[in-house]
């Protein structure tokens, strides 16, 4: 315990070297998202495509523990039909029980069930993935970010830039490349341009043409079946899983602020009228003459 206390003390006092210098990791590009800004909304088609990417690619290793099948139907999300959600849930086997005999049993999934995880527990996930369990994806774009630095962290407030997590996740998914000369990637690691320290355990998950997208009348995919598009779509989907009430939040925010603006206007004029009884408001102090007391 003493040793641990000392370690933590060292960390607090900044005596330990940081794991990596922040400057080395490149800054992800800022993309255009349908859900950014005060009136942002998810693109339903994009969320549905993103879900397809999650299901066919990510889901083999990554859980989505906080999301239930029924969420896919609720307003503000991918808005699959109720029948689609029911059919989808039924494709999964869910463990239930104990039954009257006291046994656990498997049954087809129902909309109220959460997405079954690919591994029974964290140790199983870790042992199947080279010693490190793949993280749950439910909150990913809210749980990741990148350093903004001065003065951008101030301007972000005014332009409502809160898609840093989404930009980072997309950059990461598209950031696999050959390690530069002289960079040795350790065994079991993969080089990623945007991952802090560049060595990531996850192998390149996406490749062009991997997931089939819905076709238009001409038989062509509605959007290109490329790594870049897959990354954007699955990031949009994960932004929804991280913040399922994003649309409701922004909509209510506009109403609330509009109401408060009107109310504050009314209060302002009420206040003026009240203060007129004593000859109007006088605030502060007269600017004192810049002469000193004798």
């Amino acid at each position, binding site marked *: 315990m003493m040793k641990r206390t000392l370690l933590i003390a060292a960390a607090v006092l900044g005596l330990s070297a940081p794991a990596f210098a922040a400057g080395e990791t490149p800054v992800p590009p800022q993309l255009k998202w349908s859900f950014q800004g005060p009136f942002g909304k998810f693109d339903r088609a994009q969320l549905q495509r993103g879900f397809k990417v999650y299901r066919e690619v990510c889901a083999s290793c990554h859980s989505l523990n906080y999301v239930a099948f029924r969420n896919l139907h609720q307003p503000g999300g991918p808005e699959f039909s109720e029948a689609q959600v029911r059919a989808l849930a039924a494709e999964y086997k869910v463990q239930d029980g104990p039954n009257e005999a006291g046994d656990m049993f498997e049954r087809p999934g129902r909309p109220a069930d959460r997405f079954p995880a690919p591994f029974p527990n964290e140790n199983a996930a870790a042992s199947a993935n080279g010693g490190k369990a793949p993280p749950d994806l439910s909150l990913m774009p809210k749980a990741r970010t990148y350093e903004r630095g001065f003065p951008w962290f101030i301007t972000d407030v005014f332009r409502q830039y809160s898609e840093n997590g989404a930009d980072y996740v997309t950059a990461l998914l598209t950031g696999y490349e050959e390690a530069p000369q002289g960079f040795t990637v350790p065994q079991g690691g993969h080089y990623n341009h945007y991952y802090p320290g560049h060595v990531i355990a996850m192998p390149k998950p996406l490749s062009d043409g991997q997931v089939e997208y819905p076709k238009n009348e001409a038989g062509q995919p509605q959007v290109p079946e490329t790594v870049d598009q897959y990354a954007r779509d699955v990031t949009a989907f994960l932004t929804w899983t991280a913040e399922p009430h994003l649309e409701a939040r922004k909509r209510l925010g506009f109403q609330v602020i509009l109401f408060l603006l009107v109310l504050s206007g009314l209060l302002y004029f009420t206040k003026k009228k009240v203060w007129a009884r004593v000859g109007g408001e006088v605030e502060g102090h007269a600017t*004192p003459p810049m002469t000193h007391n004798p």
Partner: protein
Amino acid sequence: MSDHPTTYVPKSAFGKWFESRLPIAGLIHSSFIAFPVPRNLTYFWTFGAILVFMLVAQIVTGVFLAMYYTPNAGMAFQSVEHIMRDVNYGWLIRYLHANGASMFFVAVYVHIFRNFYYGSYKAPREVLYILGVIIFLLMMATAFMGYVLPWGQMSFWGATVITNLFSAIPLVGETIVSYLWGGYSVGNPTLNRFFSLHYLLPFMIAGVVILHIWALHVPGQNNPTGIPIKSGKDAVPFTPYATIKDIFAVVVFMIFFAYWVFYMPNYLGHADNYIPANPAVTPAHIVPEWYFLPFYAILRAIPDKLGGVIAMGSAIVIWCFMPWLDTSKVRSTAYRPLYKQFFWIFVIVCFLLGWLGSRPAEGWYVIASQICTAYYFAHFLIILPVLGFVERPLPLPNSILESVMGVQKGGAGIPAGANAEPHSKG
């Protein structure tokens, strides 16, 4: 509150009967209706009302959150996500509460620096002021424990770092830490006691707030001129004049609050706190919430654990001595040309400390933190006492009225038939 003779006369028979048994209506009348308010208060004086609003808002949203939150190390994170996803408007209540803490600190810092600028801490308001410092310390403890409750990575590691600071105390340090933890590391017992205390402390804050307001109603409010109310013409009754102004200011503050809640709800938090607590993985940088950053910078500026803890504690405790460290006879900085410059340098140093607190403790950041820390203490221990002797203040106006309308309006004063009844004393 009892200092002002009440003009309250109950009208109904029941009112008379009740007032002779519990004179609460008279107390409210003298404290919040007839109470004389300097007529030249600026919007900086509305932050008291804004802070009362924030305290109530935090308690109300917190009570609702506690109905759904589970203070268990294995379930806390999940229960917060349950609130965010499945509870009707749970996301709204939680974002109001999480951002409300930040808004509370925004308001309290404006309130504190207004007090520094206008010398509100000076006699006869020392007790009022020290009660305010106590409220601030309680707020810090409450906010810190509240941030631990979601049991994310920054919750866990923030709790580990901050509770470990107590181990620097000689002899009893380790014992204190194990009592804080309820064991030998941050874990489920820590979370349980932090939840309990996080629910308790706001009510203690409310208690001290009552004392703070009580102490305010004895000498009355300071004002931008720093000179006391001398005649009824210097003042207006609290209601309706201050009441309507406070309500207006609170609503404007609510717009500011709403902007964060609805459009940038996670900006003031840390992404790491959306990762469940993991004792085996330390985040790259453990950073406290923004409102603790200046103090965190002071802590890390001292290259010795105990020294750092003492410096951080002193950075706030030293505020309590300001009424005696400031030797100037003049309250308002408006009449203190030299101090005005040092005041703004001090503000800049505090912002710099805040920024440095967010940086990793390495390279020139450490040296800059040390310089700023030295200046921070020099402001209180050298600049404040010395300035009172060397500074020649500007001439003070004879009265509040003279300052704000005397010269320009030829001493118009309160027009005839105005509603402001004269008050015998301030």
